[in-house]
């Protein structure tokens, strides 16, 4: 029988399939089912600093009628923050008492002081590891790439200074030199990097002439970008990598592992097919390993990464050779 154990989040996981941070992982009942389905770990729904700001705006609007003393609302974001943190701490504690798989806290902040504050609290609450959800969309025209990157590096450094549990990061592909950023980030002392964050995307309704939300779930075809960068960076990074986005079945999970990922994070498929998708992926991986006579994940992990003489395939961007002379 194939052994599916692997290491990510600085922890031993019994399966490489991890429930990614999503609304589902903010609910204790679902977390329990995720563990029962055989997930290697669960990353709790992210605690967003930005959400606290949104809640504050709602509260300020509601309170206008009461004409409360401005002094009362001046620091109300701290009240909302405390409420959010306390709820999150309760979720960590309850999840820890209910499931036997690692419980990873996920946090996404705007300022580095808040990252460190949140990280300390989540560690104190008993989280096994922390995933920093680094998600700035690089659309601020007043900031150059260095400023954004520096912010990320400083944040990671500060968080590592204040917590002792493993810290991983989840990043987007939006960097001017993604490979180098992953490489440098992997050497900071973090326990892993997850590629890539999937953002909310706008779409356009041409009939109504309005902006709409694109499909919130990933499709099975979206795995190629994380696959490429996992393949390129797994042999070059100083920490393990995990892949996410578009991983809906065992086949894609195996591709990520072959490219060098130590784990895969799944979310959309849990909504589309139910939590049982985790056990199906586990079963599919085990079946394939048995067929291929692999006893453990390490037997084949990274077998098809860039270092195994696959550089051309990973780094080729143009189609000319492939399509040349085929009449396209």
């Amino acid at each position, binding site marked *: 029988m194939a052994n599916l154990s692997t290491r990510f989040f600085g922890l031993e996981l019994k399966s490489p399939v991890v429930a990614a941070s999503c609304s589902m992982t903010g609910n204790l009942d679902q977390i329990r089912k995720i563990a029962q389905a055989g997930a290697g770990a669960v990353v709790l729904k992210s605690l967003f600093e930005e959400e606290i*700001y949104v809640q504050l705006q709602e509260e*300020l609007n509601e309170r206008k009628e009461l004409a409360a003393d401005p*002094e*009362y609302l*001046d*620091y109300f974001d701290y*009240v909302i*923050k405390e409420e959010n943190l306390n709820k999150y701490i309760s979720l960590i504690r309850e999840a820890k008492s209910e499931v036997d798989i690692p419980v990873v806290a996920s946090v996404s902040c705007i300022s580095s002081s808040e990252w460190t504050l949140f990280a300390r609290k989540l560690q104190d609450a008993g989280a096994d590891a922390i995933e920093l959800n680094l998600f700035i969309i690089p659309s601020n025209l007043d900031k150059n790439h260095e400023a954004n990157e520096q912010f990320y590096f400083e944040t990671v450094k500060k968080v590592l200074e204040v917590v002792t549990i493993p810290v991983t990061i989840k990043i987007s592909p939006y960097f001017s030199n993604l490979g180098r950023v992953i490489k440098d980030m992997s050497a900071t002392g973090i326990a892993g990097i997850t590629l890539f964050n999937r953002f909310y995307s706008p779409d356009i309704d041409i009939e109504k002439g309005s902006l709409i939300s694109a499909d919130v779930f990933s499709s099975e075809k979206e795995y190629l970008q994380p696959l490429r960068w996992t393949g390129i960076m797994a042999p070059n990074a100083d920490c393990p990598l995990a892949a996410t986005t578009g991983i809906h079945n065992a086949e894609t999970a195996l591709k990520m592992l072959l490219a060098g990922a130590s784990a895969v994070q799944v979310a959309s498929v849990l909504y589309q097919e139910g939590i049982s998708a985790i056990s199906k992926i586990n079963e599919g991986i085990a079946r394939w390993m048995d067929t291929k006579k692999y006893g453990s994940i390490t037997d084949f992990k990274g077998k098809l990464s860039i270092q195994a003489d696959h550089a051309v395939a990973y780094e080729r961007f143009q189609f000319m050779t492939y399509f040349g002379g085929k009449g396209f």
Partner: protein
Amino acid sequence: MQEYLKMEREQAWRIELRNQIKNKERTALPRVKMPEMDPQERICYQDREVNLGLDVENARREASRCMDCVNPTCIEGCPVSINIPKFVKNIERGEFLEAAKTLKETSALPAVCGRVCPQEKQCEASCFYTLKLKKDPVAIGYLERFAADYERESGQISVPEVAPKNGMKVAAIGSGPASLAFAGDMIKLGYEVTVFEALHEIGGVLKYGIPEFRLPNHIVDVELDNLKKMGVRFERNFIVGRTATFEDLKEEGYCAFFVASGAGLPRFMNIPGENYNGILSSNEYLTRVNLMNAANDEFDTPVLKGKNVAVVGGGNTAMDSVRTAKRLGAARAMIIYRRSREEMPARVEEVHHAEEEGIEFINLANPVEYFADEKGRVNRMRIQRMELGEPDASGRRRPVVVEGSETDIDVDVVVVAIGVSPNPLIPSALPELKVSRWGTIEVDPESMQSSIPELFAGGDIVRGGATVILAMGDGRRAAAGMHRYLTESK
């Protein structure tokens, strides 16, 4: 109301007064300046008032600036609807006791309001001078204080008339401005009113929160005496819900309750090191000094007297705390506030007084961590610079962190004055009472009636935070609402 005001305005003496000076001459007069004690002298005393009050001559001259408008918009700006032109015109004609009487028609605490109300945001903001002439408004607050002080000092204190007793007992819980306004109105309507106070002193935030250099306790006591003379009973050291339950009080004959238990739960920032010795809430700091005489060496109540005192916050409570620290001997008394000076919620006058007294303002800065010596006493705070981003729903620009801008400041006392949360005692004693997620009691905004029909509420416990005058307005509305409810329930 409009008819009543019109009738009052048409009284012969008002007409005569209006005709004595042309409006052009009235509007040409500059606004009076409030005499103040010298900053260097006043910082030596915790209990000496900064504002010294107007003399008769200046008060009458200022009153003559008022044009006795046909449409007195100033009244709309007053949460307790004081007949402002009537009291001001009484001052102009020299009938100061009549002016005080007018104030007491609708306000139980004129000497208090004249000192601590943010008139610049209320009646004075709605004055014709402000709205139409774009000039300094009539100094309504100064005049209110003048009338109340004159009456007190004259010894001829009028006691408002009360209706014959109707045999019904009602209770007010808490003895701050909301309760006192409620009690004043209910006693006038003929109810037996008892005010229950958890502490040993009556007055609530007026006593424990506001320092004597802004509002001397003896001024509050005179207003309280007046309520006593009207028949209001005060019970000290009495925690409703603990000392006696609501059921106990009902058995004693109380048929309705007004809850104004305030916001006595201090808030902290929950940042690293905030539990070190030497870091305390403004509630604790001010209560020790204001209510428990900690500044007086003859009293046993201790208070930390730092050399480098940082006060976090930008409201009146922060100003009160930092100015108290200065009076307790701080060499460096600092305000640490994350927005700019213009966006501080404190009254402009308080900020101005603080500046005169040598308070250091460190704006656009926010604490992120505290450090302590080997004994656990705070000795340093780390602040980070902030810049202002887009305006938020309050209309003020949002403070945004400037990354990499941390600096350390030496401190030995830190007072956290970032607001308070509602007192949880009453809601916890009444599980069926509807409260918001923030612990405020939910009421009908007109009648102030809660989800428990015989229970009304107002002030901080409803709004989260309220100015003295807004709390008083709540108390008056609750009195009207309760009277209606009890009358209809008969």
